[in-house]
């Protein structure tokens, strides 16, 4: 069965139509269709190797698709699964570099995000000295600091402690309420009740999935 989830929404900021992708003979995506409207928090779950990261990398233009159509309207933010950072630079130097990339006048929002994610104390710390969780916080901050309208997050809470995990969801809800469209990809459906929609990517196809609420302490990221 092919995944063909079209919620029929007009004004979608992210429109994905019948996207197919193969790595040589192995078909990873078999016709994925998806719409993301403003102010929507959507999750995609799937087992390891299901093609979630491949889909996200296609959406940001990191990978070519074999066929299909992807259209994104709005400032895009992308948090890759692996922390793409530079060990030679400090946290603040990363922010300065991306400030120029995004063309931002100030780092006010970036510093605010560091506060929210509780890693403001590490601003002058070199990346090589940071824990995996703190690196992930910076990875996420770089995706959010320019106030994107479409946010694509690939396993964004990897390595977070429980408090930060909860703060992440609070932040996601705030952004959603402000009109940001968020697509969260994860291998497990933690706290999926926090999402507006949940899809499962299985055998290269996208299907609607049931949302569940995780109990505190039981489903730590």
């Amino acid at each position: 069965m092919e995944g063909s989830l079209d919620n029929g929404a007009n004004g979608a900021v992210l429109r994905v139509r019948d996207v197919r992708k193969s790595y040589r003979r192995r078909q990873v995506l078999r016709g994925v269709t998806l719409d993301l409207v403003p102010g929507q928090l959507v999750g995609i779950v799937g087992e390891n190797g299901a093609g979630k990261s491949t889909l996200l990398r296609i959406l940001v233009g990191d990978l070519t698709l074999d066929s299909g159509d992807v259209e994104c309207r709005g400032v895009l933010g992308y948090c890759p699964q692996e922390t793409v950072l530079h060990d030679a630079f400090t946290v603040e130097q990363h922010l300065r570099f991306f400030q120029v990339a995004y063309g931002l006048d100030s780092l006010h929002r970036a510093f605010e995000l560091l506060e929210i994610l509780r890693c403001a104390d590490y601003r002058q710390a070199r990346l090589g000295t940071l824990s995996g969780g703190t690196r992930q916080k910076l990875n996420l901050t770089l995706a959010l600091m320019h106030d994107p309208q479409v946010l694509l997050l690939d396993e964004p809470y990897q390595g977070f402690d429980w408090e930060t995990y909860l703060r992440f969801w609070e932040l996601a809800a705030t952004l959603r309420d402000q009109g940001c469209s968020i697509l969260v990809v994860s291998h497990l459906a933690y706290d999926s009740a926090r999402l507006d929609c949940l899809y499962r990517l299985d055998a290269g196809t996208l299907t609607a999935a049931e949302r569940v609420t995780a109990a505190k302490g039981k489903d730590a990221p």
Partner: protein
Amino acid sequence: MKRWWSCYVTATRFALIEQARNRLALIILLFFIPVWTLLAYRLTASTPVPFFVRPAGQSLMVPANTLSQITGALQAIALIVGFMMFVATARSASFDRRLVQAGYPWLFLALAKVTSLVVIAAAVAGYTTAWMQLYWRPQQLVLLAASMFLGALIYGGIGIMLAAVLRTELAGMFLLIMISFIDVGVQNPIATPVAANPVLRGLPAYGAMQSAATSVELHLVPWSYLALGLCWAVATAAIGITAFMLRTRSRRTNTSIDLAGATAADDAVGGAVLAARRSSDH
């Protein structure tokens, strides 16, 4: 214009910070160059040996220890600068790609790499020449420094080029050693009697070596050999930068309406719009 300048200055600043954080390379540079120039000079006899200086069109008798030091210095510079540029390019590959996706113009990241290469090459060449002239005085000190600078530029370019095709630092270092071993090694008349063979003209460091040899006893400025070395440097760096551009380019094939009024480059993640289309005739 202001944004371009800001992009260039920021990228260059961070490229130099990145190099300054490569402690291993800096330690090797500080200690290896003086030790090697000393050993190459002191452990080789000062007996004059014939060396064919092509810019002068004649074979000159040059002290063996001077030639040994020149080739040794060129090889050390080649390895150190090649290693520094290889490591910097390879380690920042994914990060640079993310920056380009976020709207950073790849051209300025590439220019920053070239600028850092020029700065490093100048510093290493100056440092090496300063140590060499403690043992002997060339007729043209500036030409000797320029020859070392060219050698550093060429192997820095090779380092950038190798980083585009190799994945590990070990592989990069191994290839750099092998290339410089053949290139500089066979031009040393003490090690190889074929050092005057015209076939050597095709080697990367040939122009640098001939210029350095010219600086020992002649007042002639070998412009064509300096230009030959510069061509090698530009060619290797250009191949590396092209590979860098291909690696960091977006796979998007089309763009559509920008609803965001983004301030970053149009081709960027931060630049608001992406649309990728492929015909469905696969």
